């Protein structure tokens, strides 16, 4: 049945389904930025028209469904003459079939034994040993109330400058509950991870060094990213540019009068300022990913790590 040639190529007939499918996909994508209702409608459209299209296109290949006659039995005393089917040779499991199968099976097993550890070695080390220790930033009186201080340190000193972490630390004084409050913003942009800079002069004359931590007072009430122009206010909320959430923050604790940085967490939004702020806190996530709203469903599990 090889009727297809260079002059009569095998092509499916014209169909309107792809257009419906495309509209569905467009609706779905649009819905992701507008509202989930549009996305749901788009998904339904895309799936429906996609299936119709697939059915249309594969009609030739699938072939016609054979008609099956209902089973009947002759109702009579005499047994119907037994219909002897033409004797078909039994499918023999020959030696060559056996050898073929064992060759494929054995090579597969040997291949797996060889490649799986290698693949594991390629992938797994990226995900292990990435925890970071807590860092002490020294006594609390290094942080004057209401002013930002830039704190930098090396999280993995053996790796050198690439492991330099920067935090913007502001002492908020005591909260209403009587607890010491700090705003500690992580310097990496939540757009795509570039180093965010304070929008103000750094007081280089009053640099303090405590062990491997450097502290620089800065006169800044906002922050900006040099890469793509993301801007944040004094609470780390986005004011301009492409970032999708507020600046990440460090959790902290106070031990023996020292400020100690803990784990990073992601921030959806901050209401209010300083000690009175309400922070919508989420587990840390990769820059550029949403932590709240519908889009956060796209990132159900995130490996715990700070990228770069």
């Amino acid at each position, binding site marked *: *049945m*090889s009727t297809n040639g*260079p*002059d009569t190529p095998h092509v499916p007939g014209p169909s309107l389904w792809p257009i419906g499918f495309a509209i569905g996909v467009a609706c779905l994508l649009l819905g992701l930025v507008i509202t989930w209702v549009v996305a749901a409608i788009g998904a339904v459209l895309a799936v429906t028209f996609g299936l119709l299209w697939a059915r249309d296109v594969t009609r030739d290949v699938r072939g016609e469904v054979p008609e099956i006659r209902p089973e009947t039995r002759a109702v009579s005393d005499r047994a119907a003459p037994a219909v002897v089917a033409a004797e078909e040779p039994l499918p023999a499991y020959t030696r060559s079939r056996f050898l073929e199968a064992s060759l494929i099976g054995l090579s597969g097993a040997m291949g797996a034994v060889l490649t799986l550890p290698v693949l594991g070695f390629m992938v797994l080390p990226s*995900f292990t040993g990435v925890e970071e220790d807590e860092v002490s930033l020294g006594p609390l009186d290094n942080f004057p109330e209401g002013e930002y201080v830039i704190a930098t340190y090396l999280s*993995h000193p053996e790796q050198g400058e690439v492991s330099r972490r920067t935090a913007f630390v502001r002492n908020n004084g005591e909260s209403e509950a009587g607890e010491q409050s700090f705003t500690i913003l992580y310097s990496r942009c939540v757009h795509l991870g570039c180093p965010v800079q304070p929008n103000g002069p750094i007081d280089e004359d009053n640099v303090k060094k405590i062990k491997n931590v450097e502290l620089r007072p800065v006169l800044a009430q906002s922050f900006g990213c040099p890469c793509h122009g993301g801007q944040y206010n004094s609470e780390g909320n986005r004011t301009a540019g492409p970032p999708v959430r507020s600046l990440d923050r460090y959790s902290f604790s106070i031990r023996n009068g020292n400020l100690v940085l803990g784990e990073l967490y992601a921030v959806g939004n901050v209401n209010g300022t300083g000690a009175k702020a309400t922070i919508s806190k989420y587990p840390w996530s990769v*820059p*550029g990913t949403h932590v709240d709203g519908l889009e956060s469903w796209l990132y159900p599990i995130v*490996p715990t790590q700070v990228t770069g």
Partner: protein
Amino acid sequence: MARRKTKRDQIVELAVLAPLDWVDERTGAVRGAKWFLFRNVPRDISWAQTLGFATLIAFATQTLTGAILAMYYKPGSEIDPTTGKPLAYASIEHITNDLTLGWLVRGMHRWGASVFVILLFMHMGRVFLFGAYKYPRELLWITGVLILAMGMLMGFTGYLLPWDQTAYWATVVGINLNGTAPFAGPWLAQFLAGGAEIGSDTLAKWYALHMLLIPGALIALIGIHLYLVARLGITSPPWSKEAAGRERAAVAQPTGTRAGLVRGSGDGK
């Protein structure tokens, strides 16, 4: 009228043709090369059909210059005690400023990368506008798209290697861009970062990807792509008055025949 063999003919036969014959008898190499190179092409092809070959030459240049740069480049973010700079950056400076003709070869590789990608897109545009992706050349298009993807990966992984500020932060951005892909994105980003830091491990990993894994895949894909070009031939332009896709005289099997693996195809089986 049989021409008498001159002395020169005899020498050529003895020194060139006879050894070639010897090789061909044992490998089929000469017949293979003839099959690959001496093809019929449509009468009305133009310079537009040379873009693919130009891309191939750009790739060959990248391969050659890259292999030679690898003789001098040192992937590593440790501080070199003599220069006080990271090893990778110092070795790039050394290649560019100190080594004879290093600036030229590095420049060829650096600018050639852009040439390669631009030519890839021009070639793709030509194929698209001429409709040359249609039956029976669908797999040519698909291998071509894979080659394009590999080419972009080459650009992405190569950009980090100079280990300067631009390279470093562009890579941070690139890794985090991968991180925004749904579901697998954060894991992909973590794999690309290769550990807690974008540091020595990342650089070594990307160097291995850039000069071993991706080029290997790229060479294999280009091999398939070229085989298909030789097998299926070049399409006439859309405005051609000649019928497209004439069968090749030398190939006994017409392109439309199938192996009969799918129901309803094959020859009446």
